[in-house]
């Protein structure tokens, strides 16, 4: 158990989230089951009022979760100084068995809660509130994910052991490791780079085709391939070290915190692309602006990530 001020702060916020989310969950079950906009009963009237409370609570949770996610990484980076063997957040996160799942849940929840808010804004614009039932059904699923994440996080911080020796990111993210993700290192560099740019080209094509379902698929694909290529290829150019594949170290000061810029642009780009497309499918008259916003951020991400190898090649005349 490690009680630094940062960890206590995260735990306090987790407790607040947990209480509020449970409360919102309790309210949203009748809404999801019995919502009927055409009814004029007092019950329906009460539900409409309660729906606003739940929406406010979810807004509150999401608006805090977003910066808290960055703060979580920052904290893990800081704790890495205390834990033997860890050099960045990767070592700390992997010091427990479920570290990777905690991380995946965190990212997944960001996307889901963000999408929920997106849906909510659209719902409030619609005078018939036609997404309300869907919205609350999604929340019930999101609630379960959130609870899982919070319990993972609490047990993560309680099971951190200062004296336990953990692996550093250099061994976790290498072909020789036996960790859960090591199989991706079977992909060779040329393959992953080509895959990345082909996905990006596909993304551009779907952008011009303006077909929601294709755009949605290409965004999801782009996100997955981007993360993989970042670990396998682009990361090594940021570190200028062919053996270092860690997706966390470039969040540190030594690399000018470039990781934050990368992850934030990638998140905004794909998030707006994905949730915009889903909304468009649900509601055909939805504004098409999201195409452009998504495009801008994804291009920005691609540019930043491509600059590193190019600059390296210009400087040294060889590829890594």
């Amino acid at each position: 158990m490690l009680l630094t001020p940062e960890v206590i702060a995260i735990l306090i916020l987790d407790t607040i989230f947990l209480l509020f989310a449970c409360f919102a969950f309790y309210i949203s079950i009748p809404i999801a089951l019995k919502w009927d906009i055409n009814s004029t009963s007092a019950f329906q009237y009460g539900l409409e009022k309660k729906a606003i409370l739940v929406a406010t609570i979810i807004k509150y949770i999401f608006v805090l979760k977003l910066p808290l996610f960055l703060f979580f990484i920052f904290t893990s980076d800081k704790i890495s100084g205390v834990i033997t063997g860890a050099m960045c957040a990767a070592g700390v996160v992997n010091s427990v068995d479920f570290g990777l799942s905690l991380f995946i849940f965190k990212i997944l929840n960001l996307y889901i809660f963000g999408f929920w808010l997106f849906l909510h804004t659209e719902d409030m614009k619609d005078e018939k509130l036609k997404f309300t039932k869907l919205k609350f059904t999604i929340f019930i699923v999101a609630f379960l994910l959130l609870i899982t994440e919070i319990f993972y996080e609490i047990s993560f911080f309680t099971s951190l052991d200062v004296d336990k020796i953990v692996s550093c990111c250099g061994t976790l993210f290498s072909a020789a490791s036996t960790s859960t993700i090591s199989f991706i290192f079977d992909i060779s560099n040329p393959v992953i780079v080509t895959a990345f740019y082909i996905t990006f080209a596909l993304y551009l094509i779907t952008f011009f085709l303006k077909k929601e379902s294709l755009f949605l698929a290409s965004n999801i694909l782009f996100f997955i391939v981007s993360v993989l290529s970042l670990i396998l290829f682009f990361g090594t150019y940021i570190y200028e070290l062919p053996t270092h594949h860690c997706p966390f170290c470039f969040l540190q000061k030594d690399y000018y915190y470039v990781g934050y810029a990368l992850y934030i642009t990638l998140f905004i780009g794909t998030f707006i692309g994905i949730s915009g497309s889903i909304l468009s499918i649900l509601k055909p008259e939805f504004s098409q602006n999201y195409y452009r916003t998504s495009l801008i951020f994804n291009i920005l991400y691609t540019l930043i990530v491509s600059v590193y190898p190019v600059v390296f090649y210009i400087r040294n005349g060889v590829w890594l």
Partner: protein
Amino acid sequence: MESKINHFMIGFAISSILRRGVKSFFTLFIFTSLIFLLSSILFISNSIKAELGFTLKSLPEITIQKLQAGRHTNIGINRIDKLLEFHGVVSAIPRTWGYYYFEKAGVNFSVVGIDSFDKQYKNSFESFVEDVDFDELSKNSSMIVGVGVKKALNDNYYKDYFNFVKPDGELQKVTIASTFKSSTSLESNDIILMPRDMVLDIFGMNENEATDIVLSVANPEEIPTIIEKIRNLYPDTRVITQNDLRVSYQNIFDYKSGMFLALFIISAFTFFMIVYDKASGLSSEEKKEIGILKAIGWKIDDILKEKFYEAFIISFLAFLSAIILALFFVYTLEAPLIKDIFIGYSRLKPTFDLPFVFDFQTVFLLFFLTIPLYLAAIIIPSWRVASMDADEVMR
């Protein structure tokens, strides 16, 4: 995606805060003092950590102490030759130092012996030895003292010299040659520097003994191997590395601020209750206001938004003013009273300046610890207020 910020609404929120002047001021005041206390503690702990980190860099890579029956005892100087044989060890220096308890002032002095012929292990001492003619020190049996020591001696009328009591009861008169000021005052405040043979004399130590041995290692990668070898050669020693010290400092200060934070949670919870209560109990005046707003067409969402603006303005104002106050309190006033929590009550320690450290991580930490709490406290009461029916309230 989100609707744009409504300036009129912000204006309305501000005037609403001002209308309830005393009530808002009360909340603002309590919240400010809470954040102020918390941020002062975190700022002080950061400063001391930074100062210790700075000191740490000037310390040797490896320190070797001898243990006997689980306690630290003097180590034989003859071990140095063996230690120097290890590859990678650049130098091994015996250190002679100890604490001298000065009863009248109730303080411990750190007496450190220096040898001008040995390579000095500390940069600050090295530059100091060059400054003052070291041979003079041993000839006149004089010493150099830290600022804090000088003050403690002055208060007890030892203006020019001090009488050390040796283990056999004899007095050793040592004159004060000059005061010693290091770039970091935390380490030099309680220090007395004098020639090594005099230290041996005062502490009644053997000529071929030292308090501990410090090693400097050229390549930090080799440190673990060297430690392993030392442990095999001398199993009765305790080997401390720079990294061990760094980790334990970090743990101690995280622990101390964590302890304080645990107390903070209790007061924050009380505050939470106060805000919750304040936000739920509405005067008939306020109820009427909500009723009128709804009657002229405000939606539940609008009232909630207005309440949120109000809460955010109050909490952010409290946050900003608390941080500015805390910065002033810690770095200009040197944090009276609170500083003692961290540095203990030894009378010789307190006088040193806290170096200015300001990192955004701490500000974020404070932000996450305070503002969400306030906002959380008002969500449900505000909703309850906002969802009241207009006709019911105005009646």
